[in-house]
């Protein structure tokens, strides 16, 4: 399986904090404790599970290493490599298989029905090749082979490109944008959400280890967070998803602790603003009701106490959504939680909740619903498994093995007692049949229209599942969709996408490859259009016209054939599509080489409306994202849309709800990726502060009675003296001391990303005792204190120049900040009144300061970012190909009939149905009949 190195690199570099936040979850000796516990459950004796590395731990490890054929046994904590962890996993599975020898139901040899059952429940669908692998094993060994696929951190398809982009979007400064800017930001994030959703669906289709995806789906529906509820913070949503991938198969305590610190979760359940003066109970309540204990197992009083303990648990938008503890909002008082009393924080709360007897049973019950039965419960058995789970200290693998090895899991009475979710029904069927339908790009829409829009659970309780999947309005569409799959033509071989990418993006490649520049000009040029369609009694059609000049008059140069925009969703059958989730596709036209043009016109010619009840009953629409050719990217949103129907869609070019013309003249060149800063040179380069935006962040009215007053600016992507930073907050502080006032500029780690000065702060930086945050101050007026002197002295030359450039630009920062929305909406005008004398004084003093020596020729240049983002998203779209594998095998070889032949021919219904069909004979060899049987709704 391909390891996704690039994404790992992202996590390590731009989101190093992300990894930290996960590892920080583990207490000091938890690694040793974990190893000891793993040894215990694998049948070895490491002595007491106490987190201390003693002789008995060493010898137990050595014994295990010998048994599992490791070359050497680790001598200390540092020797715990991934090989050792894997060996421990294997030791556990081997040990369990030995134990399971006494359990007769696990010694039975797997039948086709058994294999399909195990695969559908523990994974997604069941491809005949997967079934073949399990046949002949006993159930115990089959479970072991399933347990090998639980780690979701290595994916078979590279994660969406936006997650590996060099810069994280400027979430933290977006409120300073005017409406149109915020709209653009939102739309860009919505698009990324679509990419992430699409990617996950593709991964579920392609992966050879669907067991990991099943677990991730389980957690996704347990620790629920909906994208719509987190103000377009898609990067936080993606982080949460990766937490499930990395921790979802490890330990429930670690997972819960990570979720208590998860940005998307804290936002979704409003804990990010929970303060001691006014604790928000949402997260506290759901933590107990939905995540750990279950309703009825806690009191309202406990909700209040837990909410107090979680006050100040927040996250930092500026620092890639890392967890942030805000001590000034945290209630440090004593709390009473169950039988415990103390000044608890979030981690301790998780421990207290997990110590409640209800916890293990509640989680087992969840797993039972997903793996054993939606309808049949066995309280005794659930209690037994809960005991196993609890005594493993909430090891998720132990829980899962206990479930899959239980008699209940294999019992006939529990077969076909889980209603297939939309993922099971559509993605599962694609995996089972090995056929990727030509309409695969509309899978997210189809899933949504039968109730499972990934990352958009209806509320914090998640998708209720069971009967809710088959409500009257959904049942009908489910059948239609299954019919679409059963009759699907496999997706034709795509044109070579990479080829297309290189043609469209030629100028970019050329920049980094001299040879490309001398490549011969192609005879035809490719015009690519990213579009999405909504069908109603047919698909939309469009063509492209290029306009040039002739005798000073606009003149048509070339017109494409009429293109039928395939791949849309039939709105009459499946309803309208949420704008965020349109099934985007790329159409390619060939334009003769000789054509010159200064304008493109895309015309949508065949609008058609409506079904009964208007557009919701069916409507034909065309959506255009961009047109690309010859290194030029024409964004539809920059175009002009006209039609003969008044103002239908004219305000939002690209959304063509009526037959319209989209006129495109503005474009971005692909070459525009270079940063403007490189234009400057020499001294000016060093001294000039270049930034993409300066915003007012926050200020308090200058109060002479207060010894500490501040006025804060936010700078997007500032650079000077060769130091370039994604974001920084510059705080001007007016500080009173015994004999008068001081004016200084303060930078703090928590308000910079990735760092304040292009590297760690100097050793002498101050440390905030409450949250460990570090800051530095640079004096302008008044005496410089000793620590501040050291802070300045410990800077590198470049850092001194950078700080000087910041200081010298303060007057200009003020002038810039006034332009933004924050200035208006945060009452800055009023604050400034009291600060004006200070800013005057600053302006007068700067030329005489030490900062002027280093950056006198400086100043501030605000260069708005060129739309590199659009180009990036275009590249991502072009490389977004269909999954090449299904269930881990090559798509061309995955179609079910060729595999089915290797199974017994009479077992077709066993391969595809969880119980005997009720509308057709179970001997039928007609897949369509089997899939349309009511039993096909179950697994």
């Amino acid at each position, binding site marked *: 399986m391909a390891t996704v190195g690039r994404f790992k690199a992202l996590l390590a570099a731009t989101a190093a904090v992300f990894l930290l936040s996960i590892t920080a979850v583990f207490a000091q000796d938890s690694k040793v404790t974990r190893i000891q516990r793993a040894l215990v459950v694998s049948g070895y004796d490491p002595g007491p599970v106490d987190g201390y590395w003693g002789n008995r731990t060493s010898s137990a490890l050595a014994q295990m290493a010998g048994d599992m054929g490791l070359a050497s046994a680790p001598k200390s904590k540092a020797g715990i490599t991934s090989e050792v962890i894997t060996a421990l996993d294997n030791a556990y599975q081997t040990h369990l298989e030995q134990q399971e020898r006494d359990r007769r139901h696990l010694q039975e040899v797997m039948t086709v029905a058994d294999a399909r059952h195990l695969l559908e429940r523990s994974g997604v669908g069941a491809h005949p090749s997967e079934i073949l692998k399990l046949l002949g094993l006993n159930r115990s060994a089959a479970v072991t082979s399933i347990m090998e696929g639980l780690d979701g951190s290595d994916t078979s398809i590279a994660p969406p490109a936006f997650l590996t982009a060099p810069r994280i979007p400027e979430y933290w400064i977006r409120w300073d944008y005017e409406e149109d800017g915020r709209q653009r930001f939102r739309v860009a994030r919505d698009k990324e959400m679509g990419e992430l959703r699409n990617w996950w669906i593709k991964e579920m289709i392609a992966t050879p280890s669907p067991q990991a995806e099943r677990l991730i789906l389980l957690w996704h529906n347990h620790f629920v967070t909906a994208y719509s509820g987190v103000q377009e913070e898609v990067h936080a949503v993606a982080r949460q998803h990766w937490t499930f991938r990395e921790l979802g198969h490890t330990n429930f305590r670690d997972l819960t602790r990570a979720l208590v610190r998860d940005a998307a979760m804290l936002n979704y359940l*409003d804990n990010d603003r929970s303060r001691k003066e006014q604790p928000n109970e949402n997260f506290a309540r759901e933590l107990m009701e939905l995540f750990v204990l279950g309703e009825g197992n806690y009191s309202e009083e406990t909700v209040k106490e837990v909410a107090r303990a979680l006050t100040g648990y927040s996250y930092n938008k500026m620092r890639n959504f890392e967890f942030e503890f805000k001590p000034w909002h945290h209630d440090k008082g004593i709390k009473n939680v169950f039988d415990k009393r103390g000044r608890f924080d979030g981690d301790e709360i998780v421990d207290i909740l997990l110590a409640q007897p209800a916890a293990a049973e509640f989680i087992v019950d969840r797993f039972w619903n997903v793996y054993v039965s939606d309808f049949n419960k066995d309280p005794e058995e659930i209690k037994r498994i809960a005991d196993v789970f609890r005594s493993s200290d909430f090891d998720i693998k132990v829980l899962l093995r206990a479930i899959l090895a239980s008699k209940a899991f294999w019992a006939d009475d529990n077969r076909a007692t889980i209603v297939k979710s939309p993922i099971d029904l559509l993605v599962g069927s694609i995996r089972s049949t090995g056929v990727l339908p030509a309409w695969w790009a509309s899978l997210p829409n189809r899933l949504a229209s039968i109730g499972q829009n990934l990352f958009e659970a209806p509320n914090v309780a998640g998708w209720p599942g069971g009967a809710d999947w088959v409500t009257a309005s959904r049942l009908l569409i489910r059948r239609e969709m299954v019919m679409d799959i059963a009759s699907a033509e496999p997706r034709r071989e795509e044109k070579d996408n990479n080829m297309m990418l290189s043609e469209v993006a030629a100028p970019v490649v050329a920049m980094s490859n001299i040879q490309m520049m001398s490549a011969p000009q192609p005879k035809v040029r490719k015009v690519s259009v990213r579009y999405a369609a909504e069908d109603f009694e047919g698909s939309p059609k469009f063509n492209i016209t290029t306009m040039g000049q002739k005798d000073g008059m606009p003149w048509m140069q070339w017109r494409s054939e009429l293109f039928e925009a395939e791949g849309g969703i039939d709105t*009459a059958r499946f309803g309208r599509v949420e704008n965020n989730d349109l099934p985007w596709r790329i159409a390619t036209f060939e334009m003769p080489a000789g054509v010159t043009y200064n304008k493109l016109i895309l015309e949508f010619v065949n609008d058609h409306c409506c079904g009964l009840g208007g557009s919701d009953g*069916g409507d034909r629409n065309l959506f255009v994202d961009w047109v690309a050719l010859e290194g030029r990217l024409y964004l539809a949103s920059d175009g002009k849309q006209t039609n003969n129907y008044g103002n239908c869609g004219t305000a939002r070019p690209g959304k063509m709800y009526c037959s319209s013309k989209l006129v495109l003249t503005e474009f971005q060149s692909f070459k525009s990726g270079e940063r403007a800063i490189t234009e400057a040179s020499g001294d000016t380069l060093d001294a000039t502060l270049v930034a993409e935006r300066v915003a007012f962040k926050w200020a308090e009215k200058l109060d002479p009675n207060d010894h500490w007053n501040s006025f804060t600016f936010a700078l997007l992507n500032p650079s000077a003296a060769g130091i370039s930073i994604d974001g920084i907050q510059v705080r001007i502080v007016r500080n009173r001391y015994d004999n008068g006032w001081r004016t200084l500029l303060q930078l703090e780690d928590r308000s910079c990303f990735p760092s304040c000065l292009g590297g760690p702060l100097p050793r002498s930086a101050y440390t905030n005792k409450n949250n460990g945050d570090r800051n530095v101050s640079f004096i302008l007026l008044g005496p410089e204190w000793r620590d501040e002197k050291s802070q300045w002295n410990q800077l590198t030359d470049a850092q001194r120049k950078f700080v000087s450039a910041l200081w010298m630009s303060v007057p200009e920062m003020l002038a810039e900040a006034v332009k933004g929305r924050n200035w208006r909406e945060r009452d800055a005008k009023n604050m400034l009144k009291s600060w004006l004398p200070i800013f005057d004084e600053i302006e007068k003093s700067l030329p005489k300061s030490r900062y002027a020596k280093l950056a006198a020729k400086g100043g501030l240049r605000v260069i708005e970012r060129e739309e590199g983002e659009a180009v990036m998203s275009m590249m991502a779209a072009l490389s977004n190909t269909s999954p090449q594998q299904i269930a881990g095998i090559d798509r061309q070889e995955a179609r079910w009939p060729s595999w089915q032949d290797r199974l017994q021919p009479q077992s077709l219904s066993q391969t595809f149905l969880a119980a005997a069909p009720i509308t057709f004979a179970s001997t039928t060899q007609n897949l369509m009949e089997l899939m349309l049987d009511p039993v096909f709704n179950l697994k």
Partner: protein
Amino acid sequence: MNRRSLINTLIAGLAIPLAPASLALAARSSGRRLILVELSGANDGLNTVVPIADERYREIRPTIGMGTNEVFNIGNGLALHNALTPLADAWQAGDLSIIQGLGYPGQNRSHFKSIALWETGGDGSKAGKTGWLTQDVENMIGAEDLDAHGVSLDGGMGIFASPSGVWLSMTSLNQFRSLGETTERLASTSINGKSTNPALAMVLDRGQSLNTAMSRISKKIARIRSNSRLRFDAGDLGRQAAMAAQLIDAGIDAPVLKIKIDGFDTHENQTWRHRDLLQNLGRALAGLRNALLDSGHWENTLIMTYSEFGRRAVENESGGTDHGTAAPHFMMGGAVSGGIWGIHPDLGALNEGDMAYTLDYRSVYDLVLAEWFGLPKNRFKGFSNSIMNGILTT
């Protein structure tokens, strides 16, 4: 496989004696109906029902405040935005009431989260999980004889979230229509007996309800022509309202219908945007009233607006208003006792520019369930509030 055999398998093994359509209609013909109107984006209550006599209104709305010539007075120092003039008839007839100061404790200012609270009856400290009226409506006496429990005409199903019941969207109605011709003869498909598998029994049972709903509705809906002349000049809301009137006229028996008008998130340039929105709202509701008066359904219909929250009382610097708290809402119907109900939030006691709500919105939910649908033991009976006594003449 064609669509006919699709239906065949859908209702596999179930021979259901269908209630004759006319009988079903008769059984429910006195049934009451609620039409929910979502004002999506958060309507600005202060510029809808304007406290025109209040000096402080002018102070907090120096630029976007309504002038006396831009409103029509309704007494008690209040006036309606002129764009709502189409509702003057209803006001005169005593069919329109205004309930003031609706909100809930622990205001959430996210559109998504707060509308979810209104849809499920939650508040700042507890979200609901199913639609606020779904369970009660499903449990109503005689509910099994309905065509459907509710129909959403705007595609949004959040307010109808329920693991049971027949809650339909316009899309499903269209599917019913296109599949409907085949249903009648399929009703006699042979039976294989109930399954002992509880999941399978449930799926078969659902197939049965679907089949029932479909066979009841498809004929009625087939009578509606998409080119009907019933039109209200009120944008997309007008289209939905006209559709609602047609569904009712066609005899589709569903106690709850839902329509929606979007665009109330007026952070900027509120003046003209809000006027256009209210104009569509006024025209659509007036048109709906006229249509239902004509078809004789007005007395059995209650129309109610709702929105995720109100907007901030103090206007912002961009000619608009930001996310706020309390807001008034409309109730209309033949059985409504028109007038102004509840207490207007005190503009002299704003908290950070926001009004304090004076009535929990769930009191209205209790009122609707208890008084309109005759379900006094509903989920919200704890919010029962006598301040609205007499608003429904039931």
